[in-house]
C-alpha cells in the first residue's frame, strides 16, 4: 500500500525536476554570434535570414512589404504589441530573452531606452549611420542620440504640427479657406481666441474651435525654453505657467468642445460640425482625420498656429545583443534613407519623412488631395526647421499627464490655481521621489 503511493509522489518530483533540467539544457543553445565588426557588401538578394521586429502600431506592415521587394530573402517577422508595449519591452529587455532584433520607441519613452543601452551604437562602424543622420532633419536625428552623442535609433519621419481645419467651415465663418489667410488670423493667441469666440457665437453655440483645452497645450509645450527637469529639479517654464489661465479662458470663452482626446467621440468630431479642427502633427491627417472621416476628402487644410510645435514620432533601433545585426541594419537603412522607398512611402501614405534629399525633391510640387491640393510638405518643412527638441526629457509623458490633471482642476473650478499647482508638485514628487520639487 505504501509503495504505490510513494512511487507516484517520487515520479511526480522526478518529472518536475526532469522538466527543469531538460528545458534548462534546451535554452543553452545560446551560441554566441560571430560578432562581425564589419558587414560584408553583398547584392541585395544575397542577404538571407529571419529577423524579428516589434512595434506597437501596424506601420511596419507596409515597410516590410516594400522592403521585401528590394531584399526578397530577408524574412521580417513582425509582431504588433498593441497593449502595454513599453511594459512588454521592459520585461523582455530586462530578462535578456526573446528580445526582437528591431524595435521601436515612441517619443514618450525613447529617452528612457536611450539611457539603458538597449539599442546598439549606430554611429560606430559597421553602421556608420552618421551618413544617414547628416541628411535628416536636425531635431529628429538629435533625439535618437544617447548622452554621449552617439546615434542609437533612427526615425523615418518628422512630426511637426499645425491646426488642421475644415475648409467648408472656414469659408462659412471666416469668409475664406485659404491656409495663409487662416494662419494670419491665428498667428497670435489673441487672434486664435477671437476666431473661437466668433465661431461660437455665429453658430449659436453649436461649433467650437477646439476639441478640448488640452489642444492649446501643445502650442505652449512647443514654445518652451526650459525642459521639465534639469539637473534633477522640476522646472515649470513660464509658457506652461501661462497655460493655466489660457486653458481656463478657453473654457470660459467656449473654445473647447469638451471632448476627451482619443475617445471615439473625439475621433468622430472629424465627421460633424462640432469642431473647427484639430491641433495635431503630421500623422493627424492619416491616422485621425482620414481614418475617422474618409469621405471628407478635399475639405481639410492645415494652418500655422501661434507657435510651431511637434508631437510624437517613432524611432527604431537594433537590439544591442541581436544576432542578426547585419540583416537588421539593411532594414533600418532601407526605411530611413532609401530614396525610392521613401518617395513611394510618401505617395502611398502621405507621411512626412525626415530625409532631407527626399523632402527637397517633393516639397516644391507636393499637392495633398485630401487637403484640397495644399502643399502640406512645404508647410511642414518650414515648421520642422523651427523645432527645439533639446527640451524633451524622459519624464515628459508622465509629467504632462499630471499637469493636465492639475490644470483640469483649475479649469473645472475644482481648485484655485495655487492649489492646483501644489497638487501638481505633490504628484510629481510622489511619482519621482528623487526629483527636487519646490
Amino acid at each position, binding site marked *: 500500500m505504501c509503495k504505490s503511493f510513494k512511487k*507516484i509522489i517520487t515520479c*511526480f518530483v522526478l518529472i518536475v525536476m526532469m522538466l527543469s533540467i531538460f528545458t534548462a539544457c534546451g535554452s543553452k543553445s545560446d551560441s554566441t554570434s560571430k560578432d562581425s565588426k564589419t558587414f560584408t557588401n553583398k547584392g541585395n538578394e544575397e542577404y538571407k535570414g529571419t529577423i524579428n521586429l516589434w512595434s506597437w502600431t501596424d506601420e511596419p506592415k507596409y515597410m516590410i512589404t516594400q522592403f521585401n521587394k528590394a531584399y526578397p530573402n530577408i524574412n521580417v517577422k513582425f509582431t504588433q504589441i498593441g497593449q502595454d508595449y513599453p511594459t512588454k519591452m521592459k520585461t523582455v529587455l530586462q530578462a535578456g530573452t526573446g528580445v526582437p532584433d528591431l524595435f521601436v520607441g515612441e517619443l514618450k519613452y525613447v529617452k528612457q531606452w536611450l539611457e*539603458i543601452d538597449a539599442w546598439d551604437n549606430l554611429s560606430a562602424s559597421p553602421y556608420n549611420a552618421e551618413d544617414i543622420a547628416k541628411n535628416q532633419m536636425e531635431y529628429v536625428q538629435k533625439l535618437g542620440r544617447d548622452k554621449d552623442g552617439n546615434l542609437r535609433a533612427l526615425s523615418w519621419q518628422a512630426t511637426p504640427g499645425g491646426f488642421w481645419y475644415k475648409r467648408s467651415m472656414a469659408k462659412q465663418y471666416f469668409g475664406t479657406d485659404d491656409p495663409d489667410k487662416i494662419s494670419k488670423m491665428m498667428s497670435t493667441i489673441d487672434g486664435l481666441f477671437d476666431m473661437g469666440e466668433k465661431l461660437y457665437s455665429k453658430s449659436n453655440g453649436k461649433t467650437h474651435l477646439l476639441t478640448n483645452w488640452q489642444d492649446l497645450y501643445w502650442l505652449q509645450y512647443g514654445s518652451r525654453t526650459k525642459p521639465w527637469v534639469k539637473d534633477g529639479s522640476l522646472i515649470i517654464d513660464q509658457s506652461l505657467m501661462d497655460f493655466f489661465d489660457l486653458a481656463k479662458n478657453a473654457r470660459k470663452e467656449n473654445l473647447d468642445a469638451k*471632448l*476627451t482626446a482619443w475617445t471615439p*467621440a473625439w475621433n468622430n468630431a472629424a465627421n460633424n460640425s462640432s469642431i473647427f479642427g484639430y491641433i495635431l502633427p503630421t500623422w493627424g491627417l492619416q491616422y485621425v482625420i482620414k481614418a475617422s472621416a474618409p469621405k471628407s476628402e478635399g475639405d481639410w487644410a492645415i494652418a500655422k498656429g501661434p507657435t510651431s510645435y511637434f508631437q510624437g514620432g517613432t524611432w527604431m533601433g537594433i537590439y544591442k545583443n541581436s544576432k542578426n545585426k547585419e540583416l537588421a541594419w539593411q532594414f533600418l537603412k532601407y526605411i530611413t534613407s532609401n530614396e525610392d522607398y521613401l518617395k513611394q512611402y510618401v505617395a502611398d501614405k502621405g507621411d512626412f519623412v525626415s530625409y532631407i534629399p527626399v523632402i527637397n525633391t517633393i516639397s516644391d510640387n507636393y499637392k495633398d488631395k485630401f487637403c484640397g491640393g495644399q502643399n502640406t510638405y512645404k508647410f511642414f518643412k518650414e515648421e520642422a526647421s523651427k523645432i527645439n527638441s533639446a527640451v524633451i526629457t524622459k519624464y515628459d509623458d508622465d509629467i504632462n*499627464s499630471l499637469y493636465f490633471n492639475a490644470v483640469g*482642476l483649475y479649469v473645472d473650478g475644482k481648485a484655485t490655481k495655487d492649489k492646483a499647482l501644489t497638487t501638481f508638485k505633490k504628484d510629481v514628487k*510622489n511619482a519621482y*521621489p528623487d526629483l527636487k520639487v519646490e
Partner: protein
Amino acid sequence: MKRLKIKTEGYGYFFIAPYFITFLVLQLYPILYTFFISFTKWDGMTKMTFVGLENYNRLIRDDVFYKTIGNTWIIWIANVIPQMVLAVLLAVVLNYKKIKGSDFFKSIFYLPNLVTATSIGVLFSVILDWQTGSLNRILIAIGILKQPVNWLNSPFYTRGTTSLIQWWMWFGYSTIIFDAGIKAISNDIYEAAIVDGANRRQTFWKITLPLLRPTVLYSTITSLIGGMQIFDIPMTLTDGLGNPQQSILTMVLYLYNTSFKRNNYGYGAAISYGLFVIILIASIILFKFINRKSLYD
C-alpha cells in the same frame, strides 16, 4: 488497530505533497523575490542597489498610499454589500419550488463573470462620456437632464461606476455559491421547522441564514481578497492614473504604475507587501467577526 491508524495518518503528507512541491517551486520564489526587491532601489533595467527599509519608511508616510487604501475599501464595500444581499435573496428565491427556470436565471446571472474586465471598463468609459456618451443622451432625451453631466469627472460617480461594474460582474457568481450552500442544507431541518409551525420568513431568518453563514464567510473573504486587488476596471475606466482626483487609484493600480510606468520596482514591491498585510489583517478581522456568531449554533 492502532498501528493501522498511525500508518494511515502519515498518508496525508503524500496527498498534500504535490501542492506544496508546486507551490515551493513556482510560487514561493516570486513571493520571496518580490520581498527581496522591496529592500532595493531598482528601475528594472540597470543595477539594483540595496536601500534597507527606505521603501517601507516612505510607504508609512505616503499619503497617496493611504488614499489608495481608502479608495479600494470604499469601492469594495459599495460593491460587496449589495452583491451579497442580492445574491442571498436570489439564491433563496430561486430555490422556491414555484419559480421555474431557476437554472436558466442562474446561467444568465453568471454571464457577466465571463467577460474580461478591461473590455467592460472601456465600454463604460464610452457610455459615460461627457458630450457624446449614451447615458447622457438617453437622460437628456427623457428629460431628466438638461445638460450633459460629466460623470467621470466626479469622484463619487466614478467610484460608484466602478463598484457597479464589480457588482454586475460578480453577483451571479455569488448567487451560484449561495445556491449550492442552500442546497446543501438538509430538507429534514426545514420539514421539522414547518411541522413546528414556522412560516417562510421565520425559516429564512432562523434556519437558512445561520446555516448559510460559513458560505457567506467564504464568499465575503474571497470577495475581499479580490476586491483589494481590483485593477482592470480602474485602469481602463479613466486615464489610467486613477483620476478624477485619484478617486479610483486603487492599491494595485498604484503598485502597477509605480513599478511599470515609473520604473520604481523597489517601491512597488513595498506597496505589494503593504497590500498583503492589509488583506491579511482584514481577513482575520472579517473571519472573527462573522465566525464568532456562528459558534452559537
